[in-house]
């Protein structure tokens, strides 16, 4: 017996052809999209704004480099469309940049657990374009920023990096994201020979020929501050409580050294998984440890859960003072002043930093983005600094060639809203470290600052 055969193979072939065509179409459509519009919320519009809006030269922080912005290179012929031919830049008044833009990629977390820090960074991206263009651009060329989100996931981060390098063709990537994403994305920058300035606070130890790391490392946040903290409070014994990943572990390793060097003692060290909600058992361990001081290296919701619960277990700030190295405004705000008053936080930047440059910058930030804008904080400030450092180095080098800019980065020093910063021989950043004390109204008061704190890092990429 044979079953009746149905012969519709032609239509089936048609279907396969159609699906192949569909796939090709999808791919092609995506490709067109990419070339037509840069995938940045603040794309070309920002350059227009920069040209249209007269910007006070004081507003735009001028990089204090040894060299003034270079004349546009002769090889870079001006575009026929530009109304203005690039003049000789007058002293003090930088010429309007023109020509092929310098593309600055920003790899950041705009969704997922760290997505909270995205909005201030994308706001600051606007200022980066404006301010660098107002100061004459890079080698006379305007800058454009391209933003890419890592979704707090290294696999997505790697794709985002690919997008920046291969599709947006950026000249430099500024990063503020997790170490996991950095490790995943770094090889792409190395392969493509694209300069990669990682500006987030991290555990230290990064060293690569295309990388500079301008965020705070634990040695900077802790070396001067731990002895200060023990002196201030008279506390000798510490409890270290952190989330379970690289950065808290490295922080605690160093903290232990500094504590012991200062004659103190670590009486407890605990790690909890990311996403921990109940700290009752941990609170009991801390209460039983007899610690005078707590160093919590907890992030996000974990920090809030621990601190709000700790108060009721009698181990709040009142009972055991805290020195935190990541508690930022958002997390502190959610804990509320009743919980946070008196806590001390050590970071490379607070918006309360009292300098003419910073006050100006911060008021401009809130004027532009509204009084309830996501607060400008250490991550966004370091991204801004990284962009200024890059612009200064590229101007000094007279090119955007990675090796030349990298060479010009070495030893570069600037004064920015953050303070006096300088690239060290270890490709990290010598920078000010501030200690803020949280006030009864929840505001942050800078009670101590250490200028030009050197990172305890070594790096010599051959």
């Amino acid at each position, binding site marked *: 017996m044979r079953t009746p055969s149905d012969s519709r193979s032609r239509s089936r072939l048609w279907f396969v052809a159609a699906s192949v065509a569909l796939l090709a179409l999808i791919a092609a459509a995506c490709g067109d999209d990419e070339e037509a519009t840069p995938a940045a919320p603040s794309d070309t519009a920002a350059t227009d704004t920069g040209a249209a809006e007269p910007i006070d030269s004081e507003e735009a922080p001028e990089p204090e480099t040894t060299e003034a912005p270079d004349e546009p290179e002769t090889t870079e012929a001006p575009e026929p469309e530009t109304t203005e031919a690039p003049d000789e830049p007058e002293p003090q008044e930088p010429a309007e940049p023109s020509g092929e833009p310098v593309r600055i990629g920003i790899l950041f977390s705009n969704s997922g657990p760290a997505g909270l820090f995205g909005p201030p960074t994308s706001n600051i991206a606007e200022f980066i374009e404006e301010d660098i263009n107002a100061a004459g651009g890079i080698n006379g060329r305007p800058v454009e920023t391209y933003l890419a989100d890592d979704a707090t996931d290294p696999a997505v981060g790697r794709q985002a990096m690919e997008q920046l390098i291969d599709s947006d063709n950026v000249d430099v990537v500024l990063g503020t994201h997790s170490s996991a994403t950095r490790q995943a994305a770094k090889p792409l920058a190395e392969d493509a020979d694209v300069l990669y300035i990682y500006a987030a606070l991290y555990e230290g130890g990064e060293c690569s020929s295309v990388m500079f790391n301008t965020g705070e490392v634990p040695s900077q946040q802790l070396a001067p501050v731990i002895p200060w903290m023990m002196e201030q409070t008279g506390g000798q014994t510490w409890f270290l409580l952190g989330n379970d990943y690289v950065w808290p572990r490295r922080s605690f390793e160093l903290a232990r050294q500094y504590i012991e060097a200062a004659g103190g003692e670590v009486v407890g060290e605990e790690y909890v998984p990311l996403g921990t909600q109940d700290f009752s058992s941990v609170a009991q361990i801390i209460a039983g440890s007899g610690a005078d001081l707590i160093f919590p290296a907890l992030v996000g919701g974990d920090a809030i859960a621990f601190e709000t619960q700790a108060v009721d277990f009698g181990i709040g700030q009142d009972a055991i003072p805290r020195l935190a190295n990541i508690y930022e405004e958002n997390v502190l705000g959610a804990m*509320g002043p009743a919980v946070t008053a008196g806590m001390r936080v050590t970071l490379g930047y607070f918006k309360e930093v009292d300098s003419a440059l910073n006050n100006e910058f911060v008021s401009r930030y809130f004027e532009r983005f509204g009084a309830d804008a996501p607060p400008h904080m250490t991550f966004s400030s370091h991204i801004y600094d990284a962009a200024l450092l890059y612009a200064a180095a590229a101007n000094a080098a007279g090119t955007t060639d990675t090796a030349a800019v990298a060479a010009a980065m070495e030893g570069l020093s600037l004064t920015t809203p953050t303070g006096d910063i300088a690239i060290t021989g270890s490709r990290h950043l010598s920078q000010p470290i501030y200690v803020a004390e949280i006030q009864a109204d929840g505001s942050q008061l800078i009670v101590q600052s250490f200028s030009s704190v050197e990172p305890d890092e070594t790096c010599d990429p051959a």
Partner: protein
Amino acid sequence: MDALTLELLNGASLFAILAIVALGLGIVFGLMGVINLAHGEFVMLGAYVAYVVHTVGLNHWLSVPLAAVVLFVLGVVIEVGLIRRIHRQPELTILATFGLSVCLRQIAELVFSKDFQSVPNPVPGATEAFGVLFPTYRYLLIAIAAVVVAATLLAFTRSRFGLVVRAIVADRDLAESAGIRTGMTNLCAFGVGAATAGIAGALVAPLGAVEPQAGLAYLPGAFLVVIVGGYNRLWGVAAGALTVAAVQTGVIHFYDAVWAQIASLALAVLVLQFRRPTPAGAVA
């Protein structure tokens, strides 16, 4: 001795949190065979109800019934609009509720922003009892959670309605052919499940951050409870919460929090391996 008392109280408060958070998941799973991956988001929305109650200046305790009502309505809407169409296919409900969880998270983000929010503790401080100081709010949390869990489970098992429910848990097809209107029971189960999630959210809000992503942190714990406790009897939620709380508290006490998490996961694997579960509402 005091240390042991404290550890017992810690275990009790963890048990209360786990039980109240997992209750709705257990009901919906046990009764309907629906694995609700949006359960964490229900808890998150309950916490936001508490946050809104706080911002408009009302008493925190008001948020507990209010969250129950809001989430009940939401649960009913979701059951009628979505779950009803697909509840017979467990894998589809897993995926639909996963999509739902993404939607609810994003909507919360658009409405409330990504910022961390918090709800202040209505009864700060600690109470001395059994010779130890223990947070007052946690005593209340344990009490309320116990009442809510017990009342819900009793309603689902001991009442006339409970009889119907048990019939469905035992054999859905048979119950249906016996003329029980499972549609109405499903509606109740999903609505009540969501309402208890809302209560859980409002109750835990003062203990941590209120944020759009918070639900992701609650879901795994709730799952462990339901798996360990077994979902073919509603009291399994209580048993599961007790077991998980004991394991967590014990391992943290003797070892550390990271291994406590691994231990609970391993426990769930073992339970899945060595129990012979006849999943209740789940259609084979």
